[in-house]
């Protein structure tokens, strides 16, 4: 009985994700938002906007720095999970 609620929540989240995938543009679609302007803007303006000549660094650390912050948090959580899994109690540590 206890497991019903997590299963329901997970099913709801999974449903949401599947619906999101269905809304995504098809692979290689020329009219996808990623291909309508933002790519040209990155290539044209990234040096003036960020001062970095490496466009990839400009994208992941300036335009999408918030995303990279989340990525760093994933690493943090990974270490936390390993610590928790290997913790053996006060008298052993």
């Amino acid at each position, binding site marked *: 009985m206890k497991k019903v609620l997590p299963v329901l929540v997970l099913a709801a989240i999974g449903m949401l994700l599947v619906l999101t995938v269905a809304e995504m543009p098809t692979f290689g679609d020329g009219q996808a938002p990623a291909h309508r302007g933002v790519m040209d803007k990155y290539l044209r303006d990234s040096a003036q906007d960020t001062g*970095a000549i*490496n466009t*990839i660094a400009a994208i992941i650390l*300036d335009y999408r720095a918030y995303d*990279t912050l989340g990525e760093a948090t994933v*690493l943090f959580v990974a270490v936390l999970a390993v610590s928790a899994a*290997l913790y053996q109690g006060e008298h052993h540590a």
Partner: protein
Amino acid sequence: MWLFWQFRRLCTKVNTMHDMVLEVVNRLLLPFIQLFGMYILFHGHLSPGGGFSGGAVIGASLILYSLTFRFARVKHRLDHDTSVFFEAAGALIYVAIGFVGLFFGYNFLTNRGVFPLGVPGQLWSSGMILIITLALGAKVSGTILSLFQELLEGGSDEHGNP
């Protein structure tokens, strides 16, 4: 689980092993590996590379160091608290850089208008990107090293005995 115990056995073996060839070769190699990692970090905004890859190289060199020179013996120089400190400091610097933008009235993690951008192509340019790359390097190397130390120390007491 079986893999984990094999790893623990290997690490216990390494902890008591003493190999002169390994030590001499690593004494020569480690500075160059770490210099290469630093190069990747500092040129993250100029050439391929950046915080994650440079941090991985430096973290791997630190793992090599503690494997070669017996972890229990060099523990006072490279203990778990140090790696956790670098990891937490990297994350903290990242978030603090984001709040600098808020402080000057821009969005969270704003670069242009808050930090001096410099001339594109020079080493000291690109404002916060360079700072965040260094912070990410500290964070990633600390993460790799502390994962390694966590697996090594998992079931042992504070003196490194299994």
